[in-house]
């Protein structure tokens, strides 16, 4: 959707324009917000932040701020800033402190060691590239299961499979991913 299409839709019906924006950019905004808040927020926190983003976008629409320029870039910026604000408030409220006696701490200590490998963005790119090497629908199944935290039944509808097929593919794909990660030095 470009600026003039957006303007035409807005002039025809504001509510339809809002719906169209959410339909077109909803996944984009959700993935940005989810990426920031998945470790510190509940699904409700994420959805609330998602709504805050679009509410701000609708305000900008009224002020003609979306009609020109790169709509997706502007929406992405609003999403990131809002998600960062929410992240700060959630983490400050929760005061993320893990005790060394905590069960999670034990699991972290004994799990796959990635600290020895390239950090941050390089690691993320590497992980994603290995996941994508698995091909579809395995890559999507793994991401939706372990990153987006969906249940097998929910994934099944997205990839047009049965839930049991999703589970078995998921197990096999995960084994393949471990092999690939081991090949680049990420070991258990």
């Amino acid at each position, binding site marked *: 959707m470009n600026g003039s299409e957006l303007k035409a839709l807005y002039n025809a019906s504001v*509510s339809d324009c*809002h*719906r169209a924006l*959410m*339909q077109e950019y*909803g*996944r984009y905004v*959700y*993935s*940005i917000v*989810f*990426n*920031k808040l*998945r*470790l510190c927020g509940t699904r409700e926190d994420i*959805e*609330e932040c*998602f*709504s*805050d983003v*679009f*509410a701000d976008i*609708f*305000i900008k629409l009224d002020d003609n701020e979306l009609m020109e320029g790169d709509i997706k870039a502007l929406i*992405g910026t609003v999403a990131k800033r809002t998600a960062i*604000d*929410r992240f*700060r*408030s959630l*983490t*400050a*409220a929760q*005061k993320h402190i893990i005790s060394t006696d905590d069960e999670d701490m034990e*699991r*972290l200590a004994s*799990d*796959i060691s*990635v600290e020895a490998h390239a950090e*941050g*963005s390089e690691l*993320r*790119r590497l*992980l*994603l590239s290995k996941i*994508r090497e698995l091909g579809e629908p395995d*890559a*999507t199944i*793994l*991401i*939706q299961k*372990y*990153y*987006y935290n*969906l249940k097998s039944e*929910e*994934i099944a509808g*997205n990839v047009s499979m049965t839930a049991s097929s999703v589970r078995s593919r998921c197990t096999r794909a*995960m084994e393949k991913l471990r092999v690939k*990660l081991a090949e680049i030095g990420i070991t*258990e």
Partner: protein
Amino acid sequence: MKEKEIFDKLVNAEDDTMDILTDMCPEITDAELDRLLAVTERKYKMKKKDKDRAEKDNDITMSENEVSGVERVRRPAWLTPIATAASVVLVAGIVLGSVIMLNRQAKSGNGSGVDQPAVTATTADITEITTTGTGTSVTNTASTTQTTTETTAETTLYTTVPFVAPAAEDIYVDNELGDIALELFKEYDEIDLLRNAAGVEVDTQDGLRFAADPEVEIWSTCYDTHQGEKGIAYYIHVTDSRFSCLEDIRRYLRSVLSEGLYERLFGDSMASGFDELEQNEVLDKEHMKQWIEYRGKLYQYCPYGGWGKLPVVFSDSYPVIIADKTETSCTAYFPEWYIEVDNFENCVCMEVKLILDPEFNDWRIDNVQQFEGRHYGELYDMINS
């Protein structure tokens, strides 16, 4: 789960990684879209309403002799009371002279150093009060030669209480709590009008005249004579749809203020139970309060002089910062500008203490302090560092 921890490394993704994750993001179903859209539309309408209100504030005009749209003004600007209309919004406010009847300063909720102006004045035709005002600096002179006015209030914007910054680890941005704090503060700002006997619809043709208790030196604006008069307690019938009795006022105030702050600011501002007293008789100081119920009707005291406020504005770019949050209390900091958003040097840092009021199980303002704008800037930098 070990698998999950691998994927946890994908947080804080860069743009190119985000694009891939977006492609793999599950579709939003129609039902989910409807639900999310409904919630979003509600938030959008609320934000739009706030934005429209803030913009409307900036449409207030102030001429030399009067201010229009009085509900939205903020800093002192002298007004000429409207004496001829049958029903007006009363705008008169600060009482000139050594008024102690309403105990405003003693009851000040924030211990503010705003001083009462020291005044020597004689009876004057209220329509002749002239007003000059530029920005936030106002001078006021009356038409009689014997009048002198020292307006010390304008020289002290902020409290004399020193600013104590919260610890860095105790401050954060909480959008929901911040919205609550800001909305409550906007209501508090409206209540400030009530403290100064303004912002209430009254009937200037329906007044009460009592002789003031000789122990109290007061001046009133008397709408029956169109004069400012010393030694007279003049009350005017409140016709505001919000308030028909003292309990209505109390309920309204308690919708914003904690019990403690309500008591400090308004605890001694109401009186009733003297229906047997006739007009022009002496009204003792125990009953000479800001609001009275008399023979079944609600009245408001009419102090002598004028008062006004400049419009205040806030900015979405500078969020409400929450500090010292507990389950039942927190402190909110945000910048407030007069007329238009500017830099931190030209704003006021508002410190608003909220408590979870047990009577309503809802947040209420427990204290308000003003500090120099740079203090908000310091907190803002801490948040963003």
